[in-house]
């Protein structure tokens, strides 16, 4: 049996040669680090000493209020941003659809621009927008007679402010993806629906959305993964504050590893994050995955 397998592999060796360079990099820069992370999560590892402690790191995590808070915040942030992103992307895609290509391209580029801008720069700009004393947002608040708000200083406003920022700045790549997917939907589907007297809403809900489902699924999974790991905006704008109201797992992993030098615990946190994302991916594929044929 084994001989047959080896024979078959040998016959198909050209294919393996093609895959080999990619697999080597994948092994070196992904599988080994992940494996090392799994290994470290069972140790008390503080850079200086390494001691096997079994599942203690995981037990400590789930009894640590700060980790649970970070977990809750990460869910809040992800489930705040991803639906808004998708909603915005769908709306913009549908609104752009009837226009000629040059206009579509212009707007797609416009929405995509933040995607190619450093998240650090974006965060710096929004720090000024949210500045409680001299910020743009509070300037508008005052000009319409409202009280100033410490957007990033108030524990009730900080997370919604970050979600709002991410909603405004994000979603560009999803718009490009959805536009491409929508362009591939045969035109006669829409024409037939119109001839049958379907309203715009009906066309959107019964034709556009179902046919875009695979792309929406992809965007949802990628958006969930990206936002679940959010770090740079938290690091630059709030450092997890005020009162830990914006602390996320990504930021907590960073501070635990590189400020507290507790790499074992940080690895355990990463493993929990990895597990949650894997479950998300599975659920999303299971519930939303379907083949679409035009």
């Amino acid at each position, binding site marked *: 049996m084994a001989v047959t397998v080896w024979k078959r592999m040998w016959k198909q060796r050209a294919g393996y040669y093609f895959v080999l360079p990619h697999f080597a990099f994948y092994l070196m820069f992904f599988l080994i680090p992940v494996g090392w992370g799994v290994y470290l999560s069972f140790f008390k590892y503080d850079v*200086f*000493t390494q001691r096997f402690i079994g599942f203690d790191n995981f037990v400590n995590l789930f009894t640590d209020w700060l980790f649970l808070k970070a977990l809750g915040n990460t869910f809040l942030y992800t489930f705040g941003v991803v639906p808004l992103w998708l909603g915005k992307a769908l709306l913009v895609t549908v609104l752009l659809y009837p226009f000629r290509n040059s206009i579509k391209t212009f707007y797609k580029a416009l929405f995509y621009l933040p995607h190619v801008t450093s998240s650090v720069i974006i965060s710096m700009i929004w720090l000024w927008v949210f500045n409680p*004393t001299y910020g743009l947002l509070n300037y508008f608040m005052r000009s319409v007679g409202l009280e*100033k708000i*410490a957007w990033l200083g108030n*524990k009730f406003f900080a997370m919604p402010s970050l979600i709002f920022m991410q909603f405004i700045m994000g979603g560009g790549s999803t718009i490009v993806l959805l536009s491409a997917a929508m362009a591939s939907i045969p035109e006669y589907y829409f024409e037939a629906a119109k001839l049958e007297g379907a309203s715009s809403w009906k066309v959107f809900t019964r034709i556009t959305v179902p046919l875009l489902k695979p792309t929406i699924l992809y965007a949802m999974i990628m958006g969930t993964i990206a936002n679940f790991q959010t770090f740079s905006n938290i690091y630059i704008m709030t450092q997890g504050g005020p*009162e830990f109201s914006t602390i996320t797992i990504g930021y907590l992993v960073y501070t635990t590893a*590189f*400020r507290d*030098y507790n790499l074992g615990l940080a690895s355990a946190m990463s493993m929990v994050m990895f597990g949650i994302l894997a479950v998300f991916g599975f659920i999303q594929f299971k519930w939303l995955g379907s083949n679409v044929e035009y």
Partner: protein
Amino acid sequence: MKTRKAVVLLLVLLFSVSLLMGAKMTITWWINPWRIAPPGFPSDQAPTSEDFPKWASEEFMKLHPDVNVEYVVVGNQEYAQKMAASIATRTQPDLFKGPVWDSRWAKNGFLEPIDPYLTEEELEDFYEKILDEGLIDGKRYIWPWNFGTNGMGTSMLLYTPDFEKAGVDWQKIVDEGWTMEEFVDIAQKLTWDTDGDGENDHFAISFGAKDTHNILNFLYAFGGQLTNADETQVTFNTPEAVAGLQYVLDLVNKYGVAPKGVEALGVYDVIGNFHAHNTSIGFGGPYEIGRITRYLKEGRISEQFYPVIAPFPHVDGKDPVAYTSGSGFVIFKQQDQAKRDMVFEFVKFLTSFDNLALLETLNYLTASKAVNATLYQNDPYMNEQVATFGRIMGEYGMPFFGSQEFPWSQMDKFFISALEATFAGSKTPQQALDGFVVEGNRVLKQMQ
């Protein structure tokens, strides 16, 4: 035939050169951004963080042609991360100067004690406070370089035109200090409505919850203590500490002399407010005066101005307090005696009389008493500010974050959270500091 010979010759040459190169001893060092102007640097330009380490490395290599010196400028934000990764992978530099220090490095045998290389003269000349910064189990691990930090938590900066406009004698404050009551009175005079819309938009001072040094000063000034004497308990929730925090809160909410939104601000917001003349009182020492000049050269501000250094306010009948620390070069363990000697030779080169004096270009005080006596001779304004700064640190200086053993870095996030809660109004100063003490003691317990 000729070509073959030439190729063989070239290969031999390359081999010889590589052998020679291989024979060179390599010293690697890391430094965080210190914008020191090396000798001969154009005075109309702002030095970058690369200029000094590049110059120092090259100069040392000229003195020691058999040594190759490689430097890396590591940003303050990523320093801890890079250092942790390098220690974990055992790829740490030979020596470094950075914003990070962990006593566990020394305790785990990663560092070279500097004592065998310190001469009697150096021991006499370096400030004791700085020598003791790296004192672990009776051995010293930090080779002194600078005295004091940027001055956050140490002293205040007064924008004198505003004081004169408000009819306040700033010279008296510089010379004699000010009580907490006098501070409130003066701060009220320095708060006004510039654009006439009925709302104050110019304030005496500003605070940031993430700018712990300056707020900590008030907690200590009222008599608060971070820990008990043997550092086994965090005690920053005593009535004195609470009174200090309440005072700062009152400056914002009760007296309105500092802008609201402290919970959302950090140190650079506070600095920005001072640079933009939105506030009349800033924080810091000579380095922060240098920042004004640097920002002007970099085009980040449009006007040069000359604030004066003054002490923080004090409780009537008590002295003010000032955060004092020093820092220097840390040498990682060397296996080879010759290399160890050369690394220390390089450290001594970096901290030689002339090279220490280069800190003047950054408006920093040095770790050497002899060098400090020669600084700013041609600049009466800076000479006066440095003298005031030195006096404040000398008379009122104290550490803010416990001893080298104390795990402040693991509990500062809880302190910041306490400040955020206080200024956001979600907790009283007492509740906020109680919460910090609980978390601080939890960290201490974990460490034990």
